[in-house]
């Protein structure tokens, strides 16, 4: 798996703003590079051609189709005015009553504004505008995606509290649409919002649940993201042991996958936690491993400076001066010459520690002051915290007791407040544990410490100080967002891929069926004809049975009935055939739907019914079954019901072996249908499908 070619790289700054009472975390994400397409010129040519076609097309419906495919091509780059084209497309789609298309494009536009253009505020406006329209559409998965993107807009715009109920709505839609992955994604993102709100207990609970869902769905990438977020959360709250446990599990999997691009930041996070636990040997070991891995030029080099500074600081703090000297020279001859110096605050911090260890106090003082000033200006409290510690130590050796004391006090203040915040968090964390009756024994151990705090009052005032946890947090968020964007893209790619696969297979089957029919079929017909003239019964029936076999194979590959008899009769005939060959009593009521479906949709519908009936015959143990197809307004309702033993659909879909069911779901997506399964262990199963009619009127 390579994350390099397909990923945007961004790095964050955590900024505080707002009034005294309201404080928000604002995440500004900056793109350093965007290289989704290897050959930009090809894309440009293709975009130009499409635009020309759009200009030439007379019919608005044609324009809409072209616009849709244009947007598909440019949605991952910021160079082609995706947003203004998307807005036009949305307007046109509404004008032509293509509500679904409009909503898909709205969802994509919000995603683009949040994640590609970093204009979450605009995404927010688009989402609010959508909410004002009060659109009703029977597509829960689409709504789940739309609401997740809308909630993200709030989140990225700093409106954290407002994001929560929207994530809730997204979850509800995902649940209705029976999409466990979408459900868990919304929960994971909601957990991030809760984290930023300081509600760690809730966040950790959500993340654990999401992790379970991803685990059951065997969605490893999302599972790892959830685990990682959880482990970062623990680390932020001083639960280094829990953090380590989770991280170790992730690292084991990532190592097995040889996914070094993701291993490196995890190793860095581990080294920071080791430092906080004062396990210096392990701190240096983690950093060294990461740094050594990074020497492979094939890997993403974005972390290289951070690792170099980290090692320099670690060597200096642990009196490994030979190594520190060597690293100092490497940094000075490389990174220090770049303008701007990458991650300058980390550079300065490493230098200050190095100079301190070398006894070059004046130089160290200069760097430390720089960090304090920068940290105060940007609101990065952890920087200020480290700088104060350094300054206290420096002024002490320089003999300025007064200044040393001032900085020492500032350092201690920060330290106290951080640990208080941690205790408050610990409190709510254990309260949740208590509520969920999971770990009674642990609570007793913590009770004494927690009792010292007057929690409610302090929670508000010390909220600010949470920011002091600083870099660890912001750094983890890099990793989090990094994989979030990747996941979305990957998910989309997977969907596209599996749909492509199904279409491709259908084409191949049709082709093979045609070939069989044209070559062997033709000759077999002639042979049968000739043999009837010449030979006796046995030979004739041999030829006839060969022809019969060919007929059934050919029909299995491609149902020619669809073209010859139309979808309505083809489906009825298929049901009758199963009826004739099984003990199950079938009823069917199939209204004429030939007018409403195009060729591809008919084929997918036929296959869906076929697969559903196959499943029913194989697994349900039903005695009676019915197939009902009705036209209702501009949709077609399909229901396949049996009186069998029922099954746990969610369970079935999770089993990777249930390929038929998965294919069925993908087909439903291809024909833009809503798919529901109602199954009860005593009442049998109903598989229902709502298909939008294509040729209206």
């Amino acid at each position: 798996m390579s994350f390099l070619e397909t990923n945007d790289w961004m790095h964050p700054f955590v900024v505080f703003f707002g009034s005294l009472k309201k404080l928000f975390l604002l995440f500004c994400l900056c793109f350093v590079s965007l290289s989704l397409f290897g050959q930009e010129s090809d894309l440009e040519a293709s975009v130009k051609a499409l635009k020309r076609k759009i200009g030439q097309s007379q019919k608005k419906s044609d324009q809409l189709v072209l616009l849709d495919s244009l947007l598909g091509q440019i949605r991952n780059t910021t160079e082609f005015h995706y947003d203004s084209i998307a807005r036009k497309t949305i307007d046109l789609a509404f004008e032509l009553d293509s509500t679904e298309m409009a909503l898909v494009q709205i969802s994509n536009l919000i995603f683009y504004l949040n994640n590609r253009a970093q204009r979450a505020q605009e995404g927010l406006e688009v989402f609010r505008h959508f909410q004002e329209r009060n659109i009703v559409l029977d597509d829960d998965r689409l709504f789940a995606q739309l609401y997740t993107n809308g909630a993200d807009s709030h989140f990225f715009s700093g409106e954290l509290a407002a994001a929560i109920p929207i994530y809730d709505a997204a979850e509800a839609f995902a649940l209705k649409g029976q999409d466990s992955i979408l459900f868990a994604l919304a929960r994971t993102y909601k957990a991030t919002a809760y984290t930023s709100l300081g509600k760690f207990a809730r966040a950790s609970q959500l993340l654990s649940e999401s992790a379970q869902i991803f685990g059951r769905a065997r969605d490893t990438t999302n599972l790892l993201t959830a685990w990682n977020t959880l482990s970062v959360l623990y680390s932020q709250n001083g639960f280094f042991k829990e953090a380590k446990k989770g991280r170790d599990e992730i690292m084991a999997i990532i190592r097995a996958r040889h996914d070094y691009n993701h291993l490196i930041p995890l190793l860095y996070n581990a080294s920071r936690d080791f430092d906080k636990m004062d396990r210096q040997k392990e701190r240096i070991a983690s950093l060294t491993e990461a740094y050594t891995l990074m020497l492979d030029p094939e890997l993403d080099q974005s972390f290289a400076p951070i690792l170099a500074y980290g090692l320099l600081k670690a060597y200096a703090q642990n009196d490994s001066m030979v190594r520190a000297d060597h690293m100092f020279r490497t940094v000075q001859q490389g990174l220090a010459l770049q303008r701007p110096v990458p991650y300058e605050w980390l550079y300065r911090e490493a230098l200050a520690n190095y100079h301190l260890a070398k006894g070059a106090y004046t130089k160290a003082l200069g760097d430390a002051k720089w960090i304090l000033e920068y940290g105060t200006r940007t609101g990065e409290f952890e920087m200020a915290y480290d700088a104060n510690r350094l300054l206290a130590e420096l002024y002490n050796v320089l003999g300025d007791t007064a200044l040393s004391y001032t900085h020492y006090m500032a350092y201690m203040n920060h330290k106290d407040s951080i640990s208080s915040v941690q205790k408050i968090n610990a409190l709510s964390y254990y309260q949740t544990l208590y509520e969920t009756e999971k770990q009674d024994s642990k609570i007793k151990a913590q009770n004494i410490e927690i009792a010292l705090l007057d929690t409610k009052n302090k929670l508000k005032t010390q909220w600010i100080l949470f920011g002091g946890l600083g870099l660890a947090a912001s750094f983890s968020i890099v990793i989090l967002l990094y994989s979030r964007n990747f996941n979305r893209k990957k998910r989309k790619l997977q969907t596209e891929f599996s749909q492509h696969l199904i279409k491709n297979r259908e084409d191949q089957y049709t082709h093979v069926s045609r070939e069989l029919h044209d070559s062997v079929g033709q000759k077999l017909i002639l042979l049968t004809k000739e043999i009837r003239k010449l030979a006796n019964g046995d030979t004739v029936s041999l030829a006839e049975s060969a022809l019969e076999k060919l007929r059934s194979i050919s029909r299995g590959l491609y149902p020619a009935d669809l073209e010859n008899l139309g979808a309505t009769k083809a489906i009825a005939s298929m049901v009758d055939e199963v009826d004739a060959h099984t003990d199950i009593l079938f009823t069917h009521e199939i209204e004429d739907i030939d007018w409403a479906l195009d060729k591809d949709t008919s084929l997918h519908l036929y296959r869906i019914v076929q697969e559903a009936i196959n499943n029913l015959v194989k697994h349900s143990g039903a005695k009676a079954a019915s197939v009902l197809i009705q036209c209702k307004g501009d949709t077609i309702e399909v229901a396949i019901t049996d009186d069998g033993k029922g099954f746990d659909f969610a369970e079935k879909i999770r089993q990777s072996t249930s390929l038929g069911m998965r294919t069925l779901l993908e087909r439903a997506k291809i024909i833009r249908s809503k798919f529901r399964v109602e199954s009860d262990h005593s009442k049998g199963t109903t598989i229902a499908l709502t298909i939008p009619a294509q040729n209206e009127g």
Partner: protein
Amino acid sequence: MKDRPNITLVIADDHPMLLKGLYEELTAKNYRVVGQAADGMRALELILTQRPTLALLDIDMPLLTGFEVIRMAREKGVSTKFIVLSFHKRLEYVTHAKALHIHGYLLKEDPFFEIERCIGAVLKGEVYFSSSFGTRALENASQDLKKLYLLTPSERAILKLIAKQASTNTIADKLSVSVRTVEKHRSNIIAKLALESGTNTLTNWALTNKKTILEL
């Protein structure tokens, strides 16, 4: 050999070997083949320009299917009679052909004498379907009984039980389905056979036609 000066034919099949074979057999028997087509569009064109007495058409053809050719030719008001020569050996196709008022339905592997017999019948204004379907039994049956072919396999199974005087409850028991399911099937059967609705109409009808029903 008989001369057939007044009968003209158009034949269509996208398989060259079969088209050639058919052409040779027909001309050997002195039929006048005025046009041969390898796709549906060409077949339609020939039918519209030549106005043949008969057209022998394959169903699966490029551009237009045999059924589509027939529908479109009829719309243009041609009086040509149609015989379908098909690869598909299923009752649904015969039913479909009947619904389109097609005069003959043959299978591609049917021997030539079957084709001649069919042509003869169609020219006399009769309807002829390949003997491979074994529908002869119902050929001379009443219109009522012909409707039995509209029933699905499940409906036939239930109708047989009704003919054996089984009650709805007994049928439900015997097939391990709910009484509601049986009732649903009964009402579907009544609708398809166009019987008057009433408690005993179906049972009586089944008893009257017991012999035919049990032979289905």
